[in-house]
């Protein structure tokens, strides 16, 4: 059996999906588009193993408000429901937020038009009851003609019953029904349905509604059918305020039906809207005076808790202060990877491994991968805060607050969410641009994404901040984030005035009711990110680290040379590229090729910059190469010798603004769906990086650093 999960955004769909599938969930892509396709398996322990309902595949459809043809999410959802890909569902679980019944049922009226069995999962009934309201599920079920089961996804209540009812009805068939049958258009509508029935097409009711809306996808390829539909539609008299707009007429009919028939299923205590708590919270968080300062305070706290060496004021009470959770976890992770490295080194020595093999494994592989992994805690901290903001509903408020200032640069407040995600990782952030309706705005947002310093770049900032700006580490990191935002604003203005002419797209966005963040959702999100990062670290990055180690230990005739010497392959290549980077300040020292090589490997993955610098600048610490403090100190000393403060900032800026990583390039390619735009984007990133680093270097010099 295969069930699809459909519902509005913020209806608790993700919570229900995580609850049903648990650890079996995995994320893929819908064919042709890069909308996430989440799948998992539900095991029904209450039935025999031979029962078809014992094992149910759950497919999570994207959160949508409508099955209109305007966004990729909506198209994916309806193609799947209509079984366009041949793997359609046996049943649709339509999750409906009981506290927001009218708008949620709008999608239900559309899903009901398919011929697939449907069960309505009425979520958040507990919240409704707490507000003193009552809902009559039986009346609702009779109206809809499908089972309605009250559940609480949050408290895992009613799930067993939901799945049992779903199984019962999945085994029976269902005929689509539409609220249009109850509207002034009913007669004409019936004739169009008959037309599709005659042609033997699946989901005739659904197709007929789409035909009335003028959605040519569902008139089929039969010109005769299309002509007859037009004739029938010609004789429909719409109410004057609809101005002859059939799409409007259908939407109007749906809401009229919902208002007339379903609203009565809820009885509310008088004078209570049910939104009072969210309204109270918003009276502070989107307050005219306090809203923006509080938003920036939140942003500051997120970064402070993730990156601050001592937390504010704590150094007054404790010597050296208390490190932020992010830094503390990073230290532990570092200690762990060091311990593993040391143990492995000891093992290799006892096995009598050759210097060559020990070098490859310890100095190449472990140093590279371990260094990158030690930053995982901070990346996850950032994701933790982003997930919480998303899960509570604050992200939408951030868009509400930031739309006005962003629109000036041709970006809508909605783009703020993916851009903020960009601080975590460009890849999901670029995928998040799918919530934007306008193609140009999506391209613009994707092109700006690298400027919002992602988690993988953090090791670079941390390393340089600690080595070059030991007394102002947090300020240096903050400066980099600031440079990125300034570059994004400048780039947005330039792009909107040239190759992406136009204004910010529409902004019609729900401000969902506030919820406590759900641990399971946040944990699932974090786990997914952590796994992705660890997989990359142990595959692409490990592979690249070995390649770099090889290139830096061998020359073109494949004979071993002094590690990191200019005779090595990497030294020769780096030296050749040095002239391009000379105007940027960091390529004037004799060993400048090392920085250039780090830049080049950084195009593959930003984690590579630190590991490359580690391998290339790591001077031999005699017989003591594993003493991490000594090695780190030696690396810092090497960096201080090679980078002036201005050159360090310039180097950081180039890495900030250039091509983020191969994964991001692949994502940009998939999202833009245009080879031409991909190359424009890559060129744009490299050009901006060069110009940005040039400006930063010379500006810093002028300021006397």
């Amino acid at each position: 059996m295969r069930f699809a999960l459909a519902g509005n955004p913020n209806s608790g769909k993700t919570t229900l999906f995580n609850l049903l599938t648990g650890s079996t969930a995995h994320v893929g892509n819908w064919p042709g588009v890069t909308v996430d396709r989440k799948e998992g398996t539900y095991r029904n322990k209450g039935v025999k193993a031979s029962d078809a309902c014992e094992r149910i595949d759950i497919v999570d459809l994207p959160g949508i408000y409508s099955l209109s043809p305007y966004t990729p999410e909506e198209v994916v959802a309806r193609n799947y429901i209509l079984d366009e890909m041949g793997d359609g569902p046996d049943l649709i679980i339509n999750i409906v937020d009981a506290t927001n019944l009218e708008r949620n049922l709008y999608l239900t009226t559309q899903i009901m038009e398919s011929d697939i069995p449907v069960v309505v999962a009425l979520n958040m009934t507990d919240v409704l009851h707490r507000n003193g309201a009552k809902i009559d599920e039986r009346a609702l079920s009779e109206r809809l003609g499908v089972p309605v089961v009250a559940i609480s996804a949050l408290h895992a209540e009613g799930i067993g019953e939901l799945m049992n009812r779903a199984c019962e009805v999945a085994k029976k068939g269902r005929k689509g029904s539409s609220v249009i049958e109850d509207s002034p258009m009913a007669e004409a509508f019936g004739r169009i349905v008959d037309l599709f029935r005659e042609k033997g097409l699946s989901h005739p009711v659904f197709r007929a509604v789409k035909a009335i809306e003028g959605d040519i996808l569902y008139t089929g390829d039969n010109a005769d059918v299309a002509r007859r539909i037009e004739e029938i539609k010609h004789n429909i008299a719409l109410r004057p305020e609809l101005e002859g707009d059939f799409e409007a007429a259908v939407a109007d009919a749906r809401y009229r039906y919902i208002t007339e028939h379903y609203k009565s299923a809820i009885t509310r205590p008088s004078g209570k809207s049910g939104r009072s708590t969210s309204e109270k919270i918003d009276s502070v968080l989107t307050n005219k005076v306090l809203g923006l300062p509080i938003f920036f305070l939140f942003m500051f706290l997120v970064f402070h808790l993730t990156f601050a060496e001592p937390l504010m004021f704590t150094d007054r009470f404790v010597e050296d202060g208390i490190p932020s959770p992010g830094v503390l976890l990073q230290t532990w992770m570092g200690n762990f990877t060091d311990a593993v490295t040391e143990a492995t080194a000891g093992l290799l020595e006892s096995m009598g491994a050759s210097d060559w093999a020990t070098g490859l494994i310890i100095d190449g592989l472990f140093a590279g991968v371990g260094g990158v992994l030690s930053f995982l805690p901070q990346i996850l901290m950032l994701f933790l805060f982003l997930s919480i903001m998303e899960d509570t509903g604050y992200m939408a408020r951030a868009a509400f607050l930031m739309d006005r200032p962003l629109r000036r640069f041709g970006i809508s407040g909605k783009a703020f969410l993916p851009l903020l995600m960009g601080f975590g990782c460009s890849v999901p952030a670029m995928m998040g641009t799918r919530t934007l309706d306008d193609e140009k705005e999506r391209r613009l947002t994707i092109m700006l994404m690298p400027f919002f310093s992602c988690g993988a770049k953090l090791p670079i900032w941390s390393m340089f901040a600690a080595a070059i700006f030991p007394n102002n580490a947090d300020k240096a990191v903050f400066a980099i984030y600031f440079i990125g935002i300034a570059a994004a604003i400048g780039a947005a203005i330039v792009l909107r005035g040239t190759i992406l002419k136009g204004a910010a797209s529409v902004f019609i966005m729900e401000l969902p009711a506030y919820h406590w963040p759900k641990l399971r959702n946040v944990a699932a999100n974090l786990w997914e990110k952590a796994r992705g990062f660890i997989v990359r670290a142990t595959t692409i990055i490990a592979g690249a680290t070995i390649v770099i180690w090889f290139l830096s230990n061998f020359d073109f005739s494949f004979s071993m040379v002094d590690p990191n010497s200019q005779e090595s392959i990497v030294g020769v290549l780096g030296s050749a590229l040095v002239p391009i980077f000379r105007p940027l300040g960091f390529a004037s020292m004799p060993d400048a090729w090392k920085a250039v090589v780090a830049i080049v490997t950084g195009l593959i993955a930003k984690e590579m910059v630190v590991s490359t610098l580690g391998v290339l600048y790591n001077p031999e610490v005699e017989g003591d190469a594993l003493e991490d403090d000594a090695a780190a100190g030696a690396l810092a000393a090497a960096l201080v010798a090679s980078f002036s403060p201005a050159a360090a900032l310039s180097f950081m800026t180039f890495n900030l603004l250039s091509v983020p990583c191969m994964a991001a390039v692949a994502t940009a390619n998939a999202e833009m769906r245009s080879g031409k735009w991909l190359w424009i984007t890559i060129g744009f990133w490299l050009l901006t990086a060069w110009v940005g680093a040039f400006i930063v270097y010379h500006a810093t010099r002028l300021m006397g650093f």
Partner: protein
Amino acid sequence: MQKSLDQLTPGETGTVARVGGGGMIKRRLFDMGITPGTEITLKKTAPLGDPIEVEIRGYALSVRKSEAEAVVMNVEGGASL
């Protein structure tokens, strides 16, 4: 009298007379529940003056003033236009 949704003052309620504009924006407004006869209350404007937050069908929706302009509202007070 009639005025567009963006012209409502905070706390003011009206009913939708008709929705102008066209194409995707109009469809989006309809999908979100802004159909003729619907009651809408303007809750507040964002700190920098735009967008606005309205309450409709028991939930909170945020729209930019430029999109709200397309929504013509019937409000109490004054003579009908």
